[in-house]
């Protein structure tokens, strides 16, 4: 059982269709993505990429909200797509908990926030009595740096965004998961509050042995908090490896582009004057429909082969990094 304590995403593809008048277009929102997280060694794994790169779709697949068209996802040795009984599903949901983007939308504005916490505890049948439930909630709130007295009897409108996001995380923790799937948990928050939430993930990893899949478009917080990083481009995972190694010196041209676009809060490192105009096209290019590498339309180092064939994964010679780019193909 011990060696099975893993989350394994194996060659997963999800196809979405888009109907335009009478025609129907298919595109792969997630394309043959594989990743593995060992829950025995807790880590923060970040998925980064632009909007529309399939990060959220991948998260929904892992949460079993949608089902993959190809490939399988194993959690602790069980195929999550083949779970039939309610009991199995509940056990899975208990172990894999989501944290959503917008804390203001996660709560019912007309209900006291504690109702939300009680509901989760009772839905998962963790505690029978109110006293027991309260103890569990108190413990969960303690983990995020709040106390039950601060939360009791208040409506969501009485909290700041940062506090609400903490309560939302406490709700996830109340059921005792082994992994959190946090989809853009800080993008609605202010810069000053972001760091406190991100620090919380770090603390949960170190103190509660909790793994976190952190989905974000913000490379700076991803660099700060994560152990490993996966860079997504139009459904493809193009670079996976240690966070510091990847972001200190990105290999894939797309990661290089992302890193270059990050503005730094330092007046000595202004980036705007370097900017030379490239061609901008009027409509969103159908990058999903592209043959070969999806970045070939924007890549400064594009070769002929990139437009024709999809690159495979190549291991970098010096680092523990996998790159999906022909530049690193061993010759």
């Amino acid at each position, binding site marked *: 059982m011990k060696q099975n304590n893993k989350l394994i995403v194996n060659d997963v593809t999800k196809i979405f269709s888009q109907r335009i008048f009478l025609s129907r277009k298919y595109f792969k929102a997630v394309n043959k993505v594989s990743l593995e997280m060992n829950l025995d060694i807790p880590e923060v794994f970040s998925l980064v990429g*632009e*909007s529309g790169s399939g990060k959220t779709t991948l998260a929904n697949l892992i949460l079993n909200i949608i089902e993959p068209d190809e490939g399988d996802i194993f959690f602790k040795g069980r195929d999550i797509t083949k779970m039939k009984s309610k009991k199995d599903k509940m056990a899975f949901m208990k172990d894999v908990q989501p944290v959503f983007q917008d804390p203001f939308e996660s709560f019912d504005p007309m209900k006291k926030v504690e109702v939300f916490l009680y509901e989760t505890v009772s839905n998962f049948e963790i505690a029978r009595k109110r006293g027991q439930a309260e103890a569990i909630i108190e413990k969960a709130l303690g983990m995020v740096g709040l106390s039950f007295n601060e939360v009791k009897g208040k409506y969501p409108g009485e909290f*700041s*965004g*940062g*506090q609400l996001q903490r309560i939302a995380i406490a709700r996830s923790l109340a059921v005792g998961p082994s992994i959190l799937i946090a989809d853009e948990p800080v993008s609605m928050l*202010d*810069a*000053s*509050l*972001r*760091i*406190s939430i*991100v*620090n919380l993930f770090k603390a949960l990893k170190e103190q509660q042995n909790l793994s976190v899949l952190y989905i974000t*478009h913000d*490379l*700076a*917080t991803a*660099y*700060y908090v994560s152990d490993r990083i996966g860079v997504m481009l139009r459904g493809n995972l193009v670079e996976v490896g240690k966070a510091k190694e990847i*972001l*200190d010196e990105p290999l894939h041209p797309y990661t290089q*582009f*992302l*890193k270059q*676009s*990050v*503005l*730094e*809060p*330092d*007046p000595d490192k*202004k*980036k*705007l*004057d370097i*900017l030379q*105009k490239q061609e*901008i*096209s*009027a*409509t*969103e290019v159908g990058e999903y429909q592209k043959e070969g590498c999806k970045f070939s339309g924007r890549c400064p180092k594009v070769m002929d082969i990139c437009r024709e064939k999809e690159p495979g994964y190549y291991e970098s010679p010096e680092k523990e990094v996998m790159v999906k780019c022909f530049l690193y193909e061993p010759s």
Partner: protein
Amino acid sequence: MSLVEISNLSAHYLQRGKKVRAVDEINLQIESDEILGIAGESGCGKSTLLKTIYGYVEPPLYVEKGEVGYNFSNFSVNNIFSLSSLSSIKWKKISYITQGSMNALNPVQKVHRFFLDLWKAHGQNLSLKGFEELLRNRLSYLGLPEEVLERYPHQLSGGMKQRIVIAASSLFNPEVILADEPTSALDVGVQLEVLGLFMKIQKESKNTIIIVSHDMSVLVNLCSRVAVMYAGNIVEVADTRALFKNPLHPYTKLLIESLPKIGGGKELKGIPGAPPNLAFPPSGCKFHPRCPFSSALCIEENPILAEVCENHQVACHLSLRNEEVEAEQ
């Protein structure tokens, strides 16, 4: 004389009989040919300040006191709130890019119609032909393909829509452009290009751009001067370099220190506590409950914005006291 002169401005929201002091006693001079950034956490009143600068005051927002004056190149307005109608200066002298304005384009009309409506409403002196010429010149100068005019908004990416709105706002060469979080909804790569667009506009027409953002790194890269707001007050104004290299207000310091950087390995801490409820602001300096250096004086008295060194204004008892100590020695 400065281009925009804000004196003693207080603008409040009336909410169930309570006043929410979103803009409280603000004094600020904005010169021509500068890019001013307004930074602060959400709910600190930065968007409200921008709205009142534009003269767009509608209930429940009202101006309690104070004036916003403009000294345009050929005429001046003593107080924008005493004007009977803003339509004579809108778009031509001041334009305002609201938050989420990229969704302002009509979804069932081509982009060209949007520009034609603009011409009908505001471009009285221009013939249609002249306007078309201006429009096309403008688009090609800003590097936007002309074909966008024949597109519907849903065919365009978010970045392109934002570029169109920015192009429209600068079409009649206004002297002041106000922009509220213009890049918050965009991807990092696109964000860089949209900010570059602002720089290009400013370089060409030498107008003043006031930009509101909660993202400090946007402000560092774009602005020549930055004002930091906290709970309805401006707590620090300085040239960008001075503000980031030598922040004087504890809030600014904490705000800058809390920003993660790629390549930085330091352990970071957020600012403790939460921003105050503006309906019941704390006494004295509004930052004192969260400030690591607060003293008895901070709880009693609200510090006023004072110049501590050249072009660097701070509202903090701490820096004033340090100065007095230095003067005594």
